């Protein structure tokens, strides 16, 4: 079903013929997640061209990073993708550790893995819930949000914050898994599965849901790679690429998990991949937790790092698989205690730039569905 899309540049658009209505969607629109804006030209309900405009949440994080020390920048990474802040924290920590040339102890790696996968589940739950809300099914959202609250509870026990976690530090993590985690996790695994199952029963085989999502915004793999898609969006197009498998970081090469892929790259595939990934994440957490339990209780959590972090002069790029795709940090160091240049490679930025091409010729309702299924987080989009 992947259709060929003619290479019309989105920004120049088609010639100005006919009587088209310019419909401005956003930045304050229920489906625009607060800060996105799309200017569409519509013919009735059909979209002739759509041009996204961003920057309504550009807060100057990169400039700020140049003026802060390495450790001070860590809390700012929370505010990038606030749906899964831990992944951002760990990505940044790994990048700085790469620049320093150190590797953190095994226990810290496992704790990071567990927390990251929990964050991934939380992120996907929000996405699926919001996708449901935007397509008119409000109830699954509430079932998933309850599970997310439970995950937040674990985060809170571990490092004291719900949303902006600032987990860990450069060189390891500051705290062991909380005691209550050991009782909570076995129960929570089942409730997460139950909530997913309920959502699955409410949505996946629902005739209206299938009509609304299957074949909508189908995108072919070549175009997706050319546009720089990563993560679930790329996997939905049928490309089996997951940085956890392809460029393993932490201890992901030791876990046994599947990388679900789609076929057509439509909204349904994106939704299904997220649903399946949550299951894989549960598997990873189980394995990591088993490995964690084998470690001695007094295993080190931190690698010895100097109090003031001064990586040697040079530039590195390190990427991890965040819930949205490849999240990379480029750090250029000049040997001082502040990074000379920090560039964040947000995953949804690359996907969202193809938005005009994704929705061209579809209807307004599909635009909403498409936007929700991309999972654009304004914080990391605009930085």
């Amino acid at each position: 079903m992947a259709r060929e899309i003619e290479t019309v540049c989105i920004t120049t658009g088609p010639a100005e013929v006919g009587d088209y209505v310019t419909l401005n969607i956003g930045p304050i629109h229920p489906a625009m997640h607060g800060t996105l804006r799309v200017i569409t030209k519509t013919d009735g309900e059909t979209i002739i061209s759509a041009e996204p405009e961003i920057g309504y949440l550009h807060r100057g994080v990169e400039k700020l990073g140049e003026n802060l020390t390495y450790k001070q920048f860590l809390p700012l990474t929370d505010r990038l993708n606030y749906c899964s802040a831990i992944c951002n924290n760990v990505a940044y920590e790994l990048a700085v550790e790469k620049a320093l040339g150190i590797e953190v102890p095994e226990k810290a790696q496992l704790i990071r893995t567990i927390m990251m996968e929990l964050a991934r589940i939380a992120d996907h739950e929000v996405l699926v819930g919001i996708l449901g809300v935007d397509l008119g099914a409000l109830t699954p959202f509430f079932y998933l949000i309850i599970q997310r609250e439970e995950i937040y509870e674990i985060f809170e026990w571990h490092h004291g914050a719900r949303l902006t976690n600032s987990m860990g530090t450069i060189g390891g993590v500051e705290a062991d898994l909380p005691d209550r985690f050991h009782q909570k996790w076995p129960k929570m695994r089942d409730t997460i599965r139950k909530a997913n199952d309920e959502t699955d029963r409410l949505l996946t085989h629902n005739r209206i849901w299938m009509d609304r999502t299957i074949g909508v915004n189908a995108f072919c793999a070549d175009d997706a790679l050319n546009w720089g898609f990563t993560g679930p969006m790329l996997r939905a197009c049928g490309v089996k690429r997951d940085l956890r498998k392809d460029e393993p970081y932490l201890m992901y090469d030791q876990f046994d998990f599947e990388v679900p892929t789609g076929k057509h790259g439509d909204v349904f595939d994106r939704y299904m991949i997220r649903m399946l990934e949550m299951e894989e994440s549960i598997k990873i957490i189980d394995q990591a937790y088993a490995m964690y339990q084998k470690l001695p209780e007094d295993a080190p959590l931190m690698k010895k790092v100097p109090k003031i972090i001064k990586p040697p002069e040079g530039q590195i790029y390190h990427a991890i698989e965040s819930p949205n795709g490849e999240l990379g940090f480029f750090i250029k160091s000049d040997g001082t205690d502040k990074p000379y240049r920090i560039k964040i490679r947000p995953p949804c930025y690359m996907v969202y730039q193809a938005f005009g091409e994704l929705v061209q010729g579809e209807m307004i309702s599909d635009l909403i569905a498409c936007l929700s299924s991309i999972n654009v987080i304004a914080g990391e989009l605009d930085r």
Partner: protein
Amino acid sequence: MNFQAIQGEGWLLTKAEQLINWGRSRSPWPFPYGTACCGIELMCALASGYDMARFGAERVAFTPRQCDVLIEAGTITKKMVPVLKRIYAQMAEPKWVIAVGACACTGGVFRTYSTQQGIGSVIPVDIYIPGCPPRPEGILYALLKLIDKIEADHPLYKQRQKVVEALEAGK
């Protein structure tokens, strides 16, 4: 007619005021202006675990004409400022504003070239909630504070003044 009855302690207007305040404080429909991280916590406050709808803040509409409380959750950038001003101008009186989170209050950690340092300099704000981001309980507490504020309001003050003036002129 007893002059005393109109001048403030009067029965009819006071009761009418109380009734109006009761209605307004029990149905503060929110306009969820969630731009950043705080928006996610606002979403949690609206959803099951915390359920802001208990206080009547149920009908979440994204059209400013139909809302009473503008809950501004998240950073406002300089690019966004005109939009915020316009949304506020489009809301019908009486309207209230809650600024959620450090960014909306003061600009927070983002003291940069592109961030508005607090929305207080752009639109009038009734309640500030600190925190980066505040917990959903914080947002609920702010809503309760706002309800207190609404209940202490005098919506018929102008009408009352008019009656008093008329009576004084007639004396």
